[in-house]
């Protein structure tokens, strides 16, 4: 392939625009946030024009700040409840069932994909109506049919509700990845297992599940990272409230930086978040074993 060698500098040059743009607006900001987190930068006042270097003070404050720990705990449950459990279980069930030759298969498929396609703010708007208090709201009326008294969902069970709402939004991505995994299992294996007299449950547990494990692991990594980055959907739905019951880490960063105007402190939270995501990202890199 010597012709590529001859023109290789020209080819490499084609990558430059991407490198510049990603470098300037993603990589540089990520590094710059480490510097900002060591200053008292602010949106208003003297510190806005002349931020001072304050060393580790923001981090000291951070680790003593109940609001920060609260947002980490809320984010943890949010990720665990919606991405790791809710979306995964419902997505896997849908994927397994949709492999059967059912009628309305495409209809089911499209309906499950729909929540994934809507913009964040529309999703938030939909769930405001779903979960509204009073006996006329959609959820209360549905449960009313079963004799369950009406509840002010977003006030009484805020964390559980954002988990339910985000599960709703993400079933599709789990389903699509699980379908890809299932279709890569060679049918002869099922054939052989059936001849050996295995029950469907045994087949699922000892053949299907182990064989789609790589897909499951990949899904867990990706969905954890993307769920940590959620902002708009939950902000539109609850704005972190009531109190700070649904203040996931993205909302906490926004509130500290742009509502309380403490850019330095907000950056310290951002750096911690970045570190968590990067740690998961490194595992992701290892798993992908990028083909060059």
């Amino acid at each position, binding site marked *: 392939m010597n012709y590529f060698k001859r023109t290789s500098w020209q080819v490499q040059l084609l990558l430059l625009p991407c490198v510049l743009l990603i470098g300037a607006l993603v990589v540089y900001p990520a590094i710059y946030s480490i510097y900002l987190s060591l200053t008292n930068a602010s949106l208003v006042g003297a510190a806005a024009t002349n931020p001072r270097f304050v060393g580790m003070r923001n981090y000291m404050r951070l680790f003593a700040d109940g609001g920060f720990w609260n947002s980490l705990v809320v984010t943890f449950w949010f990720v665990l409840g919606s991405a790791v459990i809710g979306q995964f279980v419902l997505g896997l069930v849908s994927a397994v069932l949709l492999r059967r030759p059912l009628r309305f298969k495409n209809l089911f498929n499209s309906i499950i994909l729909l929540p994934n396609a809507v913009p964040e703010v529309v999703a938030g708007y939909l769930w405001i109506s779903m979960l509204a208090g009073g006996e006329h709201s959609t959820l209360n009326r549905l449960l009313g049919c079963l004799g369950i008294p009406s509840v002010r969902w977003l006030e009484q069970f805020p964390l559980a509700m954002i988990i339910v709402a985000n599960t709703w939004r993400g079933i599709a991505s789990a389903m699509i990845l699980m379908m890809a995994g299932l279709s890569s299992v060679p049918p002869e294996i099922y054939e052989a297992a059936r001849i050996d007299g295995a029950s469907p449950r045994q087949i699922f547990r000892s053949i299907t599940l182990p064989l789609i494990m790589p897909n499951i692991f990949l899904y867990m990594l*990706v969905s954890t990272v993307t769920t940590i980055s959620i902002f708009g959907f939950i902000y539109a739905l609850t704005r972190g409230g009531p109190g700070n019951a649904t203040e996931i880490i993205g909302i906490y960063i926004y509130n500290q930086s742009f509502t309380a105007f403490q*850019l330095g402190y907000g950056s310290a939270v951002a750096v911690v978040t970045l570190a968590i995501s990067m740690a998961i990202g490194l595992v992701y890199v290892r798993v992908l074993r990028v083909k060059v």
Partner: protein
Amino acid sequence: MSKSKHALPTIFGRDAVAYATLSLISLFCVIPFVWLFLASFDGNASLFLRWPSSWTLNNYIGIFVREGGARWFFNSFVVVGTATIIVLVFSGFGGYALSRTNAWWKRPFLYGIVLVRVVPPPALIVPLYKILLTGNDAVGSFVRSFLNPDWVRPVMLVFGLIDGYFGLILVFAAMQLPLALWIMKTYFDTIPHDYEEAALVDGATLFQRIRHVIAPLALPGLGAAGIFAFISAWGDFLMPLILLSSSELQMLPLGLFRAFLRVQQIDYGFLSALAILYMLPAVIAFGFARRYFVQTFSGGVKA
């Protein structure tokens, strides 16, 4: 369909369970949309689900008559459309380079792209804001140096990095580029080198080869990359929230959000119609994107 035979001799009972489960999951997925759909045609819509007493199209017409609606659409299309075009051009060239080069930095670079993709956007808002603010001051003083003061504001609304189209376009493009680059790289990997070599033998320069040989071959890949960039930027709420403030620049996500925050007098019919029109392009694009979805996760492992 020999695969489906493992559903065993289909006893009615087994499929009934499947239908029931899928119906429940689908019901969960579709219920929130029922209210949105009905409310958008209801002359007197409220926050609660109900059958419209009078069906009307006024809510939809209102979007283009009343202040706001049409303007928000225009802004969203301009910003997201331009960002998508930038992503297509840059990722097309970049993905090609990444696929064809054998330079020493190729593997570290690909790992770097994966890491860039996991950066949570909320963690970038503060430094991005600071960086763009500095850039904006520079653009501002440059514009002021030769323009009549009356023209400075309109020009800054277009070229400003904070509270201007240009800044948001660049940010959207930068955020969507890593995934697009990834898609294009894996796509070009599937195109054999023979065509380019043939063109080379015929004496074509690099840019002739790109224009006449590679670009036409790249179209399906570009389609996928562009659709994902569009969907993601179209639905994004965080970046417009941080970077825009002028009402002239208001985009759909913020317009919708601010409108339903007003405590008194929320016009649910209008908002629902707006929300439906806002989600429509994303839903249509998602329909096309569905089959490329798996590749976005696994890249190297071709799906």
